[in-house]
């Protein structure tokens, strides 16, 4: 094990995979000479050259579509879309081509590509640069969407995504890039479609992904001092969704709170809540609650931005409300 940042884990995995397979190349804006907007690709142009680290013009639809075409001919492109907000410029290529070409060709072609893109707010980037649009992609059959919350998963899920024969969107998070954690040395792949149990507990299940899973884990640790045993599920994969792990946990704890950075209505949490009510209805002692972002275009002013985003305080409050409603501790 080595302790590294989430950013370093992504960088090291890209490099290791590129060394392993000549068919892997990187494509995106400012990933080469500029070394990446968030420096994930720092040093890779110098090491691998412009054939394998391709700086593009500002043309998300163009270069994302090109990655699809290159993948159809057997290459394994890793696209960097600077932030998930800009993926909207490429959404036709992602949803109508990447997700569908295998299906509409009757299984003749495959599209082994990765789209790496960070989402999330909290950086005072205002409404157009702070969104969590992963639900758009998680909605679509033909795509896979993963969302690592730790450096170890950043390594394991990115490696899995690159080796996968289908298009995989790897959701990164601006607020996580500098977080640190232990990462297994050498070969480490994390199966896509498998949620992680970050912490076992018996009183309540907290479910999150990406930055929200990190918040949930912190809250669970603090609640221990109050005699509350919270289990924390990190979804890790948004499509496919590991419904079994979610439901098994809630059947054990009888209570569930979901935390997510995206907007509440029609969000990832709504799908999780619907899953819980089908898979653990008779076990539930309280309604499933969701802690999500306030439904506004995220404002620039810091107090407003902070107020709009879900945090440990909001999660703690909802956990306590849920416990109280079920007579916990009385």
């Amino acid at each position, binding site marked *: 094990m080595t302790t590294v940042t989430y950013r370093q884990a992504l960088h090291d995995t890209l490099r290791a995979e590129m060394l392993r397979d000549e068919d892997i190349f990187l494509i995106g804006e400012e990933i080469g000479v500029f070394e990446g907007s968030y420096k994930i690709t720092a040093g890779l142009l110098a090491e691998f050259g412009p054939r394998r680290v391709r700086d*593009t013009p500002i*043309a998300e639809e*163009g270069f994302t579509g090109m990655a699809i*075409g290159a993948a159809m*001919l057997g*290459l394994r492109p890793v696209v960097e879309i600077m932030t998930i907000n800009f993926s909207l410029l490429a959404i036709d*290529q992602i949803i109508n081509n990447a997700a569908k070409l295998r299906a509409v060709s009757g299984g003749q072609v495959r*599209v082994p590509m990765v789209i790496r893109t960070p989402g999330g707010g909290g950086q005072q980037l205002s409404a157009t640069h702070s969104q969590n649009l992963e639900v758009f992609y998680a909605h679509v059959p033909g795509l896979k969407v993963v969302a690592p919350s730790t450096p170890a998963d950043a390594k394991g899920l990115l490696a899995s995504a690159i080796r996968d024969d289908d298009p995989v969107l790897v959701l990164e998070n601006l607020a996580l890039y500098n977080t640190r954690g232990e990462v297994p040395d050498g070969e480490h792949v994390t199966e896509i*479609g498998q949620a992680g149990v970050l912490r076992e507990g018996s009183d309540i299940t907290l479910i999150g992904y990406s930055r929200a899973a990190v918040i949930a884990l912190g809250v669970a640790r603090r609640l221990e001092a109050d005699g509350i045993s919270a289990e924390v599920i990190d979804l890790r994969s948004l499509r496919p969704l590991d*419904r079994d792990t979610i439901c098994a946990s809630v059947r054990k704890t009888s209570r569930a709170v979901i935390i997510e950075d995206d907007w509440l209505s029609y969000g990832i949490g709504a799908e999780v809540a619907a899953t819980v009510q089908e898979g653990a209805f008779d076990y539930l002692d309280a309604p499933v609650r969701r802690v999500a972002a306030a439904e506004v275009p995220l404002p620039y002013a810091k107090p407003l931005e902070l107020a709009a985003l879900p945090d440990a305080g909001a999660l703690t409050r909802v956990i306590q409300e849920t416990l109280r409603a079920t007579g916990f501790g009385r």
Partner: protein
Amino acid sequence: MADTRRRTARAGKTRSRSLAHEDQEVLRGYYRQMTLIRAFELRAAEMYTRAKIGGYCHLNLGEEATVVGLMAALREDDYLFATYREHGYALARGADPGRVMAELFGRASGLSGGRGGSMHMFDQEIRLFGGYGIVGAQMPVATGAALALAYRGGPGPGSPAVMCLLGDATTNIGAFHESLNLAALWQLPIVYVIVNNQLGMGTSVQASSAEPDLYKRCCAYRIEGQRADGNDVLAVRDAARAALERARGEYRPALLETVSYRLRGHSVVDPAKYRSAEENDRARAADPLPAFRARLTAAGVLGEDAATQIEAEADKAAAAAVDFADASPAPEVSTLFDGVYASPVPGLYRGMPGDPVASVPAAGA
């Protein structure tokens, strides 16, 4: 300007050179293919009205010379990315007419297994990489295929190239600009062909394009642009062949425009009321099929009997394609989830409408 990469736009010869230099059997082959496409598409229209074909169905009627000329220029190892008006290209590229019709019928034996329909014909055997239902969606993808060729190989007379088809109206969407810019910037082996049938649905080129000489858009990317008479199979073939040779040999992308005329509506169900009687007369007068027939006959390449025989064979082949499609089974519902993902997907929800997403284990389980 000293920049040697600067390219010019030019309108091609309106008429190809004399038939004297052509192999007569090859010429008859072109007529055979054009006739087959005509017969096939007329059959497809008929089958649509009989509800054997569903969805949208866009025909190549009136574009046969363009289709056959372009496909004659393409080599076996080249890659083709088409629009949603692609039945004829599949046929001219060598796809089995029965399997093309079966795809229209939505049958398991169809080119795309009945999954794609009229707009999404794929056949890896002949390097036909779709069939794209969204206008312009094929352009970045085709450009990426050219990038893959450049990634693995290099320019040379033996190298494969990519041909990317698009309609006249596609020149106005963002993907057109982004693709041409990237292909020119990175010098990729690709030829973009604007199949200008003068109408995007019901909107004319003049009403949609500030520069209606579409091939002139090449100037913005410093690549070569050329216009060819889309009703002249040999003019199309020669222009496409020259562009492809530059693409494969020197990695110089190009923009070729072929001008023809759609004989019918945008799709089978469109009566094309936006076209005047005069326009329809002009379209019929420009019909490439009787024109090529007359040209071959006048040059002594094709006798009346031979022409009639070719036409009868085409009708027979189209009828056989219908019979094959009709006799083919529809895909089994049990195969619904096949071919969506290439890698195994643990935990993938494969519920049918109304199925639960999660079930509670039985007591004691």
